[in-house]
């Protein structure tokens, strides 16, 4: 039977799925009896909630962790993990088709086994769910509750008919996909990150609305798996915040993959005719209609703040921006903190984890850790990957910080050449006439791994002069970073000194 590509899709109930549910929301789970008062009650068992719970328990705190759906949150179940699994399979198919580029034969008959690809998604997701299962959390001393939460006062809430009192609480309820208000979209049906990984059949034609990180990643993955893919972005380039060259390289990569790129374009209406979804697009004065079988929507994320009765707890929030926190991640109720997607601008798993660490420090150990002190990298896992940390040049310019960028195209890096992965660059931004790193953007096949070195340098206050002293294993793509540092060193000699040196060498 042909699948309907809409909200009715559910996860296939196979052994992997049963194993996952047994870990992340056991069907016969019995909530524990609530303690008299907890040191820390955590609402939401996504990355932030899990991170905080494990750290707090390790410190000896009495901790309750409450989840209304699945432990692991979006990251494990609907986000980073399943998307990376499918991206890997898609990359393999792309490489098979491009085998000649690597001096290999293109397999004679490349048939995409989409069902197998999605089964792999479920298997790996299930496997990883075991790490933070309900049973395991319970075993390390966390009181694990499942159920809907409602705050009942400044220091209490209810779940599953029990009242939990706390000295401190952490709200880490995450965020949900933000569905654009497009006439006819709801009636036609659409996919989001919450059900796209449950597909078992590949839509022949797919329209992706929104050119943010997830939209770009999935557009490329589904295209490489064989879906005729169109991506619509209402801005001039993808990944609105990234620098122009990075976004342009991504557009070029999409064109090579055969993705139909519609920039500066808005979806104005959707209708169903003859079993297909007709999507009306407008770009300035150009109107067109695209016929597709599935639409992937979900532009950005909206914080999960509804239904918690935050008013009773005296916690200020905004429906679109989430819970309001200060730099110490404290809400308007000094007993309650927030972390992760529900309150942060940068909605990433690693940011959620970092913010959870800050909350545990500040809430339980009277720390004064500030969110603004964090150096936060991020990465979009397209091919090539696009990673960034720190300031963008335009931000530095606006703040009147003189900035200079050391650029190493990946074609200058031997390992990128040997791997036929020359596309991309490392750009390291430094304060002009110093070696202080302000930020960096990397576009490369493995940019996500490479950005960590720059992040480390920024956190440790290491400048380009020191990075130039770091021996990088040869040949690795991370050598691009050392090459940028070498380029910096070469600029340190004034031209006059350089010509004197040259004369001296000639003697």
């Amino acid at each position, binding site marked *: 039977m042909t699948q309907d590509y809409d909200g009715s899709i559910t996860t296939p109930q196979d052994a992997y799925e049963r194993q996952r549910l047994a870990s992340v929301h056991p069907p016969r789970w019995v909530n524990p009896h609530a303690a008299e008062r907890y040191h820390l009650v955590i609402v939401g068992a996504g990355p932030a909630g899990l991170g905080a719970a494990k750290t707090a328990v390790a410190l000896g705190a009495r901790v309750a962790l409450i989840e209304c759906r699945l432990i692991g949150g979006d990251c494990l179940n609907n986000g980073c993990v399943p998307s990376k699994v499918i991206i890997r399979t898609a990359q393999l198919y792309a490489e098979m088709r491009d085998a000649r580029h690597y001096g290999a034969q293109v397999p004679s008959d490349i048939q995409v086994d989409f069902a197998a690809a999605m089964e792999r998604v479920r298997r790996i997701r299930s496997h990883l769910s075991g790490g933070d299962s309900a049973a395991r959390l319970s075993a390390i001393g966390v009181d694990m509750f499942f159920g809907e939460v409602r705050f009942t006062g400044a220091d209490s809430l209810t779940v599953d008919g029990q009242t939990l009192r706390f000295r401190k609480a952490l709200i880490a309820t995450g965020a949900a996909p933000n569905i654009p208000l497009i006439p006819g979209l709801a009636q036609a049906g659409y996919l989001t990150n919450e059900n796209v990984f449950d597909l078992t059949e590949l839509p022949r034609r797919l329209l992706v609305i929104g050119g943010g990180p997830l939209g770009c990643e999935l557009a490329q993955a589904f295209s490489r798996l064989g879906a005729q893919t169109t991506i619509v972005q209402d801005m001039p380039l993808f990944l609105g915040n990234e620098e122009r060259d990075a976004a342009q390289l991504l557009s070029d990569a999409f064109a090579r993959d055969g993705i139909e790129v519609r920039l500066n374009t808005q979806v104005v209406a959707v209708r169903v005719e003859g079993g297909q979804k007709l999507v009306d697009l407008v770009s300035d004065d150009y109107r067109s209609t695209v016929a597709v079988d599935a639409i992937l929507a979900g532009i950005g994320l909206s914080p999960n703040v509804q239904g918690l009765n935050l008013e009773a707890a005296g916690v200020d929030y905004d429906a679109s921006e989430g819970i309001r926190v200060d730099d110490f991640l404290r809400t308007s109720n000094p007993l309650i903190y927030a972390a992760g997607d529900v309150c942060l601008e940068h909605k990433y798993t690693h940011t959620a984890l970092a913010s959870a660490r800050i909350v545990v420090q500040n809430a339980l150990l009277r720390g004064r850790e500030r969110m603004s002190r964090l150096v936060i990298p991020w990465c979009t896992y397209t091919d090539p990957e696009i990673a960034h940390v720190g300031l963008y040049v335009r931000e530095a310019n606006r703040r009147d910080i003189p900035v200079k960028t050391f650029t190493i195209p990946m*074609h200058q890096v031997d390992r990128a050449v040997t791997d036929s992965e020359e596309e991309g660059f490392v750009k390291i931004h430094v304060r002009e006439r110093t070696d202080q790193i302000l930020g960096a953007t990397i576009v490369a096949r493995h940019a996500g791994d490479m950005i960590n070195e720059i992040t480390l340098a920024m956190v440790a206050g290491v400048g380009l002069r020191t990075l130039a002293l770091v021996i990088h294993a040869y040949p690795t793509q991370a050598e691009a970073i050392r090459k940028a540092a070498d380029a910096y060193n070469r600029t340190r000699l004034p031209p006059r000194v350089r010509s004197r040196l040259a004369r001296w060498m000639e003697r």
Partner: protein
Amino acid sequence: MNRVERRSRTVQSTLADEALFDRLQRAALGYFLQTLNPFNGLVADTSRPGSPVSIAVVGFALSVYPLAVDRGWLTRADALRFSLAALRFFQASDQSGSPGATGYKGFYYHFLDIHTGVRVWRSELSMIDTALLIAGVLTASLYFCADTADENELRGLADFLYRRIDWRWAQDSGETIRQGWKPECGFLHYGWEGYSEAILLYVLALGSPSCAIVGDCYRAWTSTYQWENLYDHDYLYAGPLFVHHFSHAWIDFRGIHDGFMREKCSDYFQNSRRAAYIQREYARRNPQEFAGYAENCWGLSACDGPSDEQPQLSNEPRRLFGYAARGVPYGPDDGTLCAPSVVASLPFAPEIVLDAVRHMMERYPEMCVEGRFSSSFNPSLADDNGRAWVSPGHYGLDQGIVLMMIENHRSQRIWELMRACPYIRDGLQRAGFHGGWLQQPPFAGAG
């Protein structure tokens, strides 16, 4: 080699260079004379049949006529006649901004019908192309400075056309200038960021005594600049080579600095020189291993190119990009090189440009048709006889920039003329430029 021999070689090469320059410039001039509609002064975008007018190409035409007069290739009377025809046309053109008009608010649609002068292809009202047109208009007004009825009329028209442009409107209440507008949908959102050929646009928009842009518009634009160290050259980054030429065709950036360049101890002229060296280095490295790329064969720019686009299919993988702004070092790069963009680097880096031009002409003679450079050639797509793919026909922008930049290299004629333009001087000063010729009193540079 002794001193006499060395000197003799230099004289010979100079003579050879001059002959080459003459040949290329005369051939380029031929483009404008062949595609000109003498009744309205409009010039076709390309030499291809049915080509509309590009207003930017008209700007180049108005700039090259004076050079041709100086070189004795065109009579002053003809040059004046062609220029007057164009200025009269624009003065009388429909400025209602309706879909079938010629312009709005003093700006003009990018593409016009060569006979009627009305908008074609539903093209946008183009701010940058209007700037290129008006730069040509001002060039003509500075050259034709005689006290005759026609030349007086021309100068009056030029002043009128410049002052009529409502640059402030083009800000759309924003920080920077919008790049386009259409009657069907209003301002367009190209999202241009970073250094581009728009420096001329900003200078003209700042220099207007009637409707100059307001606020810190120029600074807002330059705040998107990126100062990069690439291949051991420090420069203000822009990938396509033409970006480093178009404003420079009219404005002499030697020794004058805005706030950004002062801070970087450089100027835009030096920057274009470094851009040429970076292009050469990219071609030497040839990361994508395209045929022909070498130290003496480079030039990635906005140009025509081969295309693998299949009109009936929208989701086919593409490796050839047709007309595109190719750039260094991030591409797009499909093996297509633009010889006119190399020639246009002549004033900045003659020591590498001349060798490259000679090499490309010798190795790929097929890209020179009627003595003129085609828009582009692609040696990776050679035919059975080893002849590179060549863009059919010619583009007016290419011929204009070739003619002007060779002349700027030979005599700095356009630069000298434009130094005397009060609007350009005021615009540069309002953008924060200081130093060099801007500190000297203007002199009459007319012909």
